[in-house]
């Protein structure tokens, strides 16, 4: 049947208005702020274009050092995340393995704990005088300085971000048609050679997608190095410059531009390598890779590896939980005594933060799915010229670190007031919410696009041929069929916004505006605040965990609906 998307139909004003509104939104809240940042990095006091600031940047040892450190840490974290994730992916897809459920949990656990929260807890467990090192020193007389400096940052980031690689790799491997493997076996390849020559290359796009994402996220992460006191990396340096020297300091912008450039580079390289290698080969009626059984000692090894990873991955969660109940935990393997008072403090003092998080994140997520659905519709169902640009623009937000976007907002909206009032815009929570929305939009958009792609256009054409107008079709057919994907996109937006810190740090001014992530950070700044901070962290993890769970349920339910239709 002909490419059903080709529909040179009369567009009418509706799509154009939608296009215009979305473009305006992206322009004002993404392009212009980022443009301002880039511009400022290249302009001196007189307004003349110059590379002087960049020259300045690279001439200073501390910045060169920060640059290489960031690069190094990002690469190392990607490497170690792969080391953790690849064997786990292989175990899940390849073997009849009851631990598969465990691995799935592993794939989710780190993501529901914001890395900067985990970092604090990890200090207590893996730090110089943390539980593990105290025990090691006692029993064996040595310690592992795994939480010191850059190594510490790499460690925390690796165990937080490996699920990106794990999930992408598993999905890619699951999509390999079993016939590929069977023909390879038929031609004599097996075991390691089979993996290296057939399976891994076919799964490579999935791996690269995950790895590129990990690289970018680690490179741009502000919260973790800041909380761990590591300042010789790019993101903390930019933050420090902007907050101490002021929003006019050009070097902060130089750093921002470098961060953007590298993010784009990483994503582009990954896309290039993946170009034309979309190996989703699984046909209807095809089966996935054969599953094999493990021998006894192979089983033991596998379980051992999984348990080890599980323990390390759970360490921040356990640590945070213990901290939230601990009275005093100092230079000892476990806390001295336990109490519930921290939760009491949180619920009496900080419930406005919980409310703030809900407000900002629900609004941001709502905005995201509305815009995401609209863009998906414009791209897949209309013939508007340049509609693909909405996708590119919205997705460009992936390459923009939260820190940079916040800097852009502060600079662009400096001196502007909220319409009809004389409150400065940068002092309200509106910008926080918009920063969340803009940075989460790419994920929501991908969800909505995927959801809409699953809806065959004939389903909408059928509605139209039966007399439904465009709007009626969207309402009665398109959105219900996209529901699972839309909800998944909504929940993903929500839970990632709920633990965002980089942009929040710069944009939140007052405590009463603070969402939970900022609240946790504030609490961690005071002696007796560690307990309540941990309690708030636990709450954040619970919220995110529940959100993730429901998101999976929605996706599963919608997949079931669509699959039922296909099987029929």
């Amino acid at each position, binding site marked *: *049947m*002909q490419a059903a998307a*080709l*529909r*040179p*139909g*009369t567009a009418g004003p509706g799509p154009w208005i939608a296009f215009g509104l979305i473009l305006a939104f992206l322009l004002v809240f993404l392009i212009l702020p980022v443009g301002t940042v880039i511009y400022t990095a290249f302009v001196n006091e007189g307004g003349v274009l110059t590379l002087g600031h960049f020259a300045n940047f690279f001439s200073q040892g501390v910045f060169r050092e920060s640059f290489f450190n960031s690069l190094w840490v990002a690469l190392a974290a990607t490497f170690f995340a792969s080391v953790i994730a690849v064997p786990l992916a292989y175990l899940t897809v390849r073997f009849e393995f009851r631990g598969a459920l465990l691995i799935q949990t592993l794939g989710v656990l780190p993501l529901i704990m914001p890395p900067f929260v985990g970092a604090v807890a990890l200090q207590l467990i893996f730090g110089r005088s943390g539980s593990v090192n105290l025990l090691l020193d006692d029993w064996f007389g040595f310690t592992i300085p795994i939480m010191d400096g850059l190594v510490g940052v790499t460690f925390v980031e690796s165990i937080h971000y490996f699920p990106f690689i794990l999930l992408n790799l598993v999905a890619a491997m699951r999509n390999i048609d079993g016939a590929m493997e069977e023909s390879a076996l038929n031609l004599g390849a097996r075991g390691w050679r089979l993996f290296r020559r057939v399976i891994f290359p076919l799964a490579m796009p999935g791996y690269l997608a995950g790895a590129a994402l990990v690289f970018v996220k680690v490179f741009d992460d502000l919260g973790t190095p800041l909380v761990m006191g590591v300042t010789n990396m790019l993101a903390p340096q930019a933050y420090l410059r902007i907050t101490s020297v002021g929003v006019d300091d050009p070097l902060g912008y130089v750093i921002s531009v470098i961060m953007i450039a590298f993010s784009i580079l990483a994503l582009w390289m990954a896309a290039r390598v993946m170009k034309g290698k979309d190996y989703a080969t699984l046909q209807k009626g095809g089966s996935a890779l054969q599953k094999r059984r493990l021998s006894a000692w192979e089983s033991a090894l596998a379980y051992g590896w999984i348990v080890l990873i599980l323990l390390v991955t759970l360490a921040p969660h356990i640590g945070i939980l213990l901290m939230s109940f601990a009275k005093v935990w100092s230079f000892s393997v476990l806390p001295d005594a336990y109490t519930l008072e921290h939760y009491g403090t949180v619920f009496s003092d900080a419930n406005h933060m919980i409310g703030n998080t809900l407000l900002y994140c629900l609004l941001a997520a709502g905005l995201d799915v509305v815009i995401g659905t609209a863009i998906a519709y414009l791209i897949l169902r209309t013939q508007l010229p340049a509609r693909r640009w909405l996708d590119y623009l919205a997705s460009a937000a992936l390459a923009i670190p939260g820190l940079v976007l916040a800097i852009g907002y502060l600079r662009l909206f400096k001196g502007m007031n909220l319409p009809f009032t004389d409150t400065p815009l940068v002092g309200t929570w509106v910008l926080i919410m918009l920063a969340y929305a803009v940075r989460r939009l790419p994920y929501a958009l991908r969800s909505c696009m995927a959801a809409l792609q699953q809806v*065959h256009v*004939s*389903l909408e*054409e*059928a*509605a*139209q*041929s*039966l*007399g*439904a*107008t*465009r709007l*009626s*079709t969207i309402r*009665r*057919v398109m959105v*219900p*069929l996209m*529901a699972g994907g839309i909800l998944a996109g909504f929940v993903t937006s929500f839970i990632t916004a709920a633990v965002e810190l980089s942009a929040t740090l710069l944009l939140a001014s007052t405590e009463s505006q603070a969402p939970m992530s900022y609240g946790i950070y504030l609490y961690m700044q005071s002696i007796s605040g560690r307990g309540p901070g941990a309690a708030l962290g636990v709450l954040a993890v619970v919220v995110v965990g529940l959100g993730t769970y429901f998101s999976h349920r929605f996706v599963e339910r919608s997949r079931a*609906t*669509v699959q*039922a*239709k296909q*099987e*029929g």
Partner: protein
Amino acid sequence: MHLNKVSLEARHISLSYGSTEVLRDVNLKIEPGEFFALLGPSGSGKSTLLRLIAGFNQHQRGELLVDGQDITGTPPHARNVGMVFQNYALWPHMTVWDNVAFGLVERRETKDAIRRKVGAVLELVGLAAYAQRRPGQLSGGQQQRVALARTVVIEPKLLLLDEPLSNLDKQLRVQMREELKNLQRKLGLTTIFVTHDQEEAMTTADRMAVLDKGILQQVGAAAGLYDFPVNRFVAGFVGTANLLEGEVTAVGGETLTFRVQGVGELTLPRPEVPPPLGAMALAFRPHQVSIRVRDEQVDASRLWLNGRVESAEFLGEFSRYRVRVGEVAMVTDQPHYAGLAMFAPGAEVRLGIEPTQVRFLDR
């Protein structure tokens, strides 16, 4: 349920995607109540034409008239043209009942009217018991019936079917063909259906149009297209044909000489309206050719050519032989009876062409 019969006319319809011309100057008139087929290979533009009638494609030139009214600018949802899609396009999140009721709900019909009409049409297609099922729980044939019911219940002016049978296996296809035809006769709806299968077109349609590369080749009833194709394409597409390229060298009072490339000169009886001199193709059907052992007694009314069997296929009802005559390969189908031995490849044979059945094609 008895529905209005409308006529459909396409006048000088042309459609291009960018620089690719998909439909070129198509002129077609479909009579009220006709079961009309659009037949052609993939890429011929038949689906495009169908979707054009539904309003999902826009032609750049020409007019599209339903009962004399040009509906060119009308959006799809206002055309009241019911379309059944190749994949049925049943909404998985709705029950069979809701699927069928969709169009009526759009038209804001009363609850009672909806209940009545949906009930009636489900009876008509024999799926009343399945009203509460979901499409995923139905078989292919049942899904197709639901798609039909959904379209028919809104009492459309035209019924459009886009390759409705190609997703079904052979047995079911034959059965559904029957049912479709019966339904159409009962409702009297002007129906246009698209297919690439000439057997399907020939058995169901009152008239059909053959398209190739966006150009309308020939329109008419099945027999007319089969017996009197206007060009090589139609000859080859509607049924199988032997095409001998050559030229008419002489036309006499009783006979006509045709020189076949790679074979030689043939003398045929002169038809009533003889073809002009010059380059021509000689077309005849495989089942109109007899095959005999070289030196057997032969029927003198036929034109006999010597040849050698290249391949032999047994197809149950007949055996198909590919015979090399001179430099040309010809296909002949021989009815099969139990006990009848097949010719082996390499056998020396004679082919007998029935001269009254040959056609001369200049295009």
